[in-house]
């Protein structure tokens, strides 16, 4: 390779000082090197940082065997009766008060999913001739497969109706209580983080008539 070009690529020579033919070659190299930089990952994948930090936390814990031993090995603890009574009183206050007084109830952040108290009835339907039961589970019912679809005429098409609030909901069907399947005819899908796809339903409610901001 041209020595001048090597020096330029090594950062020892300014581009302005290059001969025209070398300059042209240098531009070709720059285009290639830019592609090398831009192809492949630009950074660590999401999740890696937390994995690292979690491993380190475990690591850190293992540096404390003596502290752990202190908690596990039997030894005498001497308590003054007065302090014991005071501690018991504090515990009684914590555990015997009504729960609202102890645990402040945060308002739920899901207000945007309910627009003007609207509700929408959504019909779910799945063709599963071999199934003995079909349920629907999603973020609207904490993924409990308890909303059962019915197949009264035995044609293998299971259907059921569910009242949902406007918003974006994810769901899957559960066949025979344990076999989770993605709705094959859903309008939309999203990764579920466990290597499968959740079906997605977007219910706009009255807000759907709103025009987008230009």
């Amino acid at each position, binding site marked *: 390779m041209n020595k001048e070009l090597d020096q330029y690529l090594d950062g020892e020579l300014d581009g302005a000082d290059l001969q025209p033919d070398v300059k042209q070659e240098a531009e070709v190299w720059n285009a290639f090197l830019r592609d090398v930089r831009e192809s492949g990952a630009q950074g660590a994948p999401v999740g890696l940082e937390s994995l690292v930090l979690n491993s380190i936390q475990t690591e850190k814990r293992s540096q404390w065997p003596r502290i752990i031993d202190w908690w596990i090995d039997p030894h*005498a603890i001497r308590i003054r009766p007065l302090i014991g009574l005071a501690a018991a009183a504090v515990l009684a206050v914590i555990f015997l008060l009504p729960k609202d007084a102890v645990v402040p109830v945060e308002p739920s952040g899901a207000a945007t999913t309910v627009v003007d108290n609207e509700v929408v009835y959504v019909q779910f339907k799945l063709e599963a001739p071999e199934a003995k039961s079909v349920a629907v589970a999603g973020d609207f019912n904490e993924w409990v497969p308890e909303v059962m679809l019915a197949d009264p005429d035995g044609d293998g098409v299971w259907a059921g109706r569910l009242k949902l609030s406007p918003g974006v909901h994810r769901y899957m069907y559960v066949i025979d209580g344990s076999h989770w399947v993605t709705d094959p005819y859903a309008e939309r899908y999203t990764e579920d983080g466990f290597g499968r796809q959740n079906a997605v339903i977007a219910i706009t409610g009255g807000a759907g008539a709103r025009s987008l901001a230009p």
Partner: protein
Amino acid sequence: MIKVSSYSLAFQSPLFLVLLVAIIGVVPLGAQTDDLVRVRALLGEGATSQIEAAIQLGLADGLPRNLLVDKAIEGAAKGMGSEVILAAVYTLTDELRQAGTVVGLDADEVNLEKAADGLRSGLDQSFLVELYRENSEDFAMVVVALEDLLRTGVTVRVAQNMLRDASSRGLRVNELLRLPANVRRLVREGRTPFEAVRSVRASMRSGRRPPYPYDGTPNFSIHRRHQTPIQFMWSIN
């Protein structure tokens, strides 16, 4: 005379005492706050405390507990092992943290979640920031439409431009949500995603409102029969 000023509890370890107090106290307390009760029932105590620790990491960054707990519950319900659930919670933590740079960590959970989905599907961060600023009320729905559009095979840039077009023509949210289906239909008929988008945008520019008619043989019947779920009834209080 023997003066007794303290009692000795030498017969048990401190851990035993702590557990004793915990048994007395945590049962009612747990009933008040334990949102991981199903995870615990399905995976046991050890795995649940690991998951709780992962959730705590997210909480320390200001992330909403509900979203992380929901992911753990979803995993447990689907029969995933604790390692898989942990990884999913960590991934979600990172994604939500990034989503916080778009909508702010104090945004509604649904917006935070959709910002994370949007970033995951490749939408530009600066684009999402602008989108949230201008359409904060409909942000989640617009991201749903964009994700849907990307799934038809169009590039991020084309999808984003299409949304800009739709916004400047004053399209309604419902109409926007129908656009990807329009594109998909044209793709099914043999157009490339890019051509399909061009055709839909041309219809949009001509002033018509979606859904748009399309040329070629319709393919309705196959998809209409089973497409679920169907929104079929409104009840407005």
